[in-house]
């Protein structure tokens, strides 16, 4: 089969969501999918868990998305291998989704929870987010993990927890921007749906090439506004 059999010529955009265990990757999916569906984006999901289908089942049960649009890939012992060294299983799952759902525009691929070194192969995805969280400590960006440095969008989740874990959000965001040479950093509280529209804006703009939900606001500034709001 050639890619030309996939949804006309291109197939759906493929976007990775990586990050450490428990940072909120599935929570981001749960918050993001309704935003994307409300914008009419034709979307499907692949989850990677070590030896279970836990996250896939959680999404299927959520009622947010049709259960058949969620595929699970078992990563075995090594979550980064299936997104970086040998992403064959994930590529096959994505091809399957492209074949099953004509008109599919976006496939979100959640990596199994890993460490700060995990990165996505561009053979698998067009674009990838890396999710860290406030409760992991405000020194995480300073540790310069390849995931933090190289992702297209760094998401700092659980901003609601900052006061409880004694994290200085301003400093955390400033340091994250500094290690990323100013590339985009978005604050979210997936638990409360905060910041998630900005992530949806970025996907719509950067890989779906759609107009933004708020066309008057330049996208880069919108993200900066949000992180300022989150940190104030």
């Amino acid at each position, binding site marked *: 089969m*050639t*890619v*030309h059999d*996939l949804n006309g*010529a*291109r*197939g759906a*955009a493929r976007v990775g969501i990586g990050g450490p265990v428990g940072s909120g990757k599935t929570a981001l999916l749960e918050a993001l999918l309704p935003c994307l569906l409300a914008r009419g984006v034709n979307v499907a999901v692949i989850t990677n868990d070590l030896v279970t289908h836990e996250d896939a089942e959680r999404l299927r049960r959520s009622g947010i998305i049709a259960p058949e649009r969620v595929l699970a890939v078992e990563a075995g012992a090594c979550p980064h291998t299936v997104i*970086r060294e040998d992403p064959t299983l994930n590529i096959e799952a994505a091809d399957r989704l492209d074949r099953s759902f004509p008109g599919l525009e976006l496939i979100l691929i959640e990596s199994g929870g890993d460490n700060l070194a995990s990165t996505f192969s*561009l*053979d698998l995805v*067009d*674009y990838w987010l890396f999710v860290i969280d406030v409760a992991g400590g405000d020194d995480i960006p300073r540790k*310069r993990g*390849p995931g933090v*440095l*190289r992702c297209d969008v760094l998401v700092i989740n659980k901003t609601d927890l900052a006061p409880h874990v004694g994290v200085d959000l301003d400093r955390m965001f400033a340091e994250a921007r500094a290690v990323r*040479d100013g590339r985009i950093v978005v604050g979210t509280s997936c638990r409360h749906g905060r910041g998630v529209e900005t992530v949806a804006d970025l996907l719509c*703009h*950067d*890989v779906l*090439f759609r*107009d*933004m939900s708020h*066309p008057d606001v*330049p*996208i*880069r500034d919108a993200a900066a506004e949000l992180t300022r709001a989150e940190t104030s």
Partner: protein
Amino acid sequence: MTSSGGDDGREGAHSYGGAAGPEALAPLRVVAILGDRAEAGWHRRLHAIEHAGAVEIVEVPAADLRRHRFRARSMCGREVIVDLPRDVFLFDGAVLYAEPDLALVLRVEAEIWLRLHPLDAAAALELGYHAGNLHWRVRFDGDDLLVAAETKAADYLARVAPLLDEGRVRHVG
């Protein structure tokens, strides 16, 4: 995959957000690679367009060559939306658009390679171990190890700081 006819790579007169001011050039959406600037036929054709001062270069980092979908800007500031099929890969000199009044050609930004010189075999073994463990992209050149710097050079040098500090490996360029 290349083709020189049919699909001209421009799709409609979309107007995208984030344009660079009132005189912004019309954005272009690239959906195919038309050819290779190095091929004689394309070389001639581009030469003719160049006379009209209408060849725009789109520079991308080497690390982005494997991407199929992204937004870029030509060196004239035109927004370029790259939206290629999965089996089509960008390369240095790829012709993205070609009409008598405008051509777009891709150029790969010069890569930065760090040259590291281990002083003896023991240092070389250790440096090689770290490079593998850190998944660095490397080349060998005589007694030196070349490391592709996809982020800041300091990010790479910091990882082998003990070797550098002890003088067992020298950063020679």
